[in-house]
């Protein structure tokens, strides 16, 4: 393959992603708006189509304030560290049978390893701000993210056992051969994955790091202008990445009835995941810190281990 083509592909994914984030934010505000019997943004463009673009333009022209007390170098570096891994994981996503970039044989491991680096950006931002709210938000966020990392990683293991490969494309081909998606074969794992994914993303009802009633806005309290925008971008990029990963693992990736091309099925399934997260945000109140941590360690991790044991026994018994 030639390098120019690869570069064009990567830039196209980046562009598509920026557009997707722009409209994911609008989608979220609209969904929550209608659920609360409001209309959501509707001033800029038809149906509020240009609202997010206006917001980004505004953030671009805002003054960039770095507090005098802050650790300047780390403060500047932190949003970049938060964003880069969230984007890097898109290298292994296979959008359809023919449209994919890196066909890594360690795809699952790559995704989980790289995506967890995002929390480093959160910790760096919170610590370097030299602000008590930021620090509390950051250590809360990181302890939550590393705790829920475990059930997330363990829930995927059941699929790896059944498929016998870490390649994301092999996982989809396996679902094609069997004729069943992993949401049916690995239903407990799917539930564990969904709960831990929401906690990983710091989304409601697990948005404790950004509990605005107690922590102002958590780890990015001191960030303003475009640096703040990059934290938000990283958050939504990571959300889209997790949705794409879940689609590949549990919803059969690009598989679907033939009247639509594979990539359309893939994107539709991703939108479904995004919609569920927005729906939960409009529905559920925030969890308490101690409940959140105990639920992870005392319920999700034992359940995930049990799922692995059962799956492994069935696999060897049936000789798949």
């Amino acid at each position, binding site marked *: 393959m030639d390098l120019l083509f690869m570069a064009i592909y990567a830039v196209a994914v980046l562009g598509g992603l920026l557009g997707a984030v722009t409209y994911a934010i609008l989608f979220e505000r609209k969904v929550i708006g209608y659920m609360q019997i409001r209309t959501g943004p509707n001033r800029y463009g038809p149906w509020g189509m240009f609202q997010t673009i206006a917001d980004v333009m505004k953030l671009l022209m805002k*003054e960039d304030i770095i507090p005098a007390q802050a650790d300047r170098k780390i403060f500047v570096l932190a949003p970049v560290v938060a964003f880069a891994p969230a984007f890097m994981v898109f290298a292994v996503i296979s959008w359809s049978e023919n449209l994919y970039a890196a066909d890594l044989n360690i795809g699952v491991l790559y995704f989980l390893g790289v995506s967890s680096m995002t929390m480093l950006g959160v910790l760096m931002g919170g610590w370097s701000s030299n602000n008590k709210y*930021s620090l509390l938000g950051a250590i809360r966020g990181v302890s939550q993210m590393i705790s829920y990392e475990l059930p997330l990683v363990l829930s995927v293991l059941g699929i790896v056992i059944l498929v016998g490969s870490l390649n994301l494309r092999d996982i989809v081909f396996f679902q094609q051969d069997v004729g069943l998606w992993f949401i049916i074969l690995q239903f407990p794992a799917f539930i564990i994955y969904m709960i831990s994914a929401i906690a990983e993303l710091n989304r409601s009802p697990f948005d404790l790091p950004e509990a605005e009633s107690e922590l102002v806005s958590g780890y990015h309290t001191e960030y303003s202008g475009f640096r703040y925008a990059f934290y938000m971008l990283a958050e939504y990029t990571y959300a889209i990445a997790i949705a794409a990963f879940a689609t590949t693992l549990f919803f059969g990736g690009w598989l679907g009835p033939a009247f639509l091309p594979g990539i359309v099925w893939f994107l539709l399934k991703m939108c479904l995941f995004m919609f569920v997260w927005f729906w939960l945000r409009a529905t559920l109140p925030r969890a308490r810190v101690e409940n959140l941590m105990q639920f992870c360690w005392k319920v999700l991790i034992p359940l995930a281990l049990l799922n*692995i044991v059962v799956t492994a026994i069935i696999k060897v018994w049936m000789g798949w």
Partner: protein
Amino acid sequence: MGLGVYFDNYIFVLLFMFLGVALPVGALTFGRLVRPNNPYPTKLTTYESGIEPTGDAQVRYHVAYYIVALEFVIFDVETVFLYPWAVALGELGWVGLNAGLIFIAILGLGLAYSWKKKVLEWN
């Protein structure tokens, strides 16, 4: 898969890494041209809901977070060991299954111990 194709995959990874760093750096550099810059001491103080900030925020915090981090390191390393086992389980058969189950049992034992020691409590 030939060796060249194998390395092509990692060129993609490098390209994505480059773009992931280049976008924020580029956008912030471009933003310097359009944004105002007018700092003064009051604006640069730490935000503490309007009250004069007291002391430093880079302080020692609750030990419970340290314990969570320790637990995480232990369990995460064990999880990483489970991955190659999961991939190879089809070929390993019963021997591999037994070894894996013993490993997971020890992992569960460790979890039960920290549960008993009230490490998982959060007060």
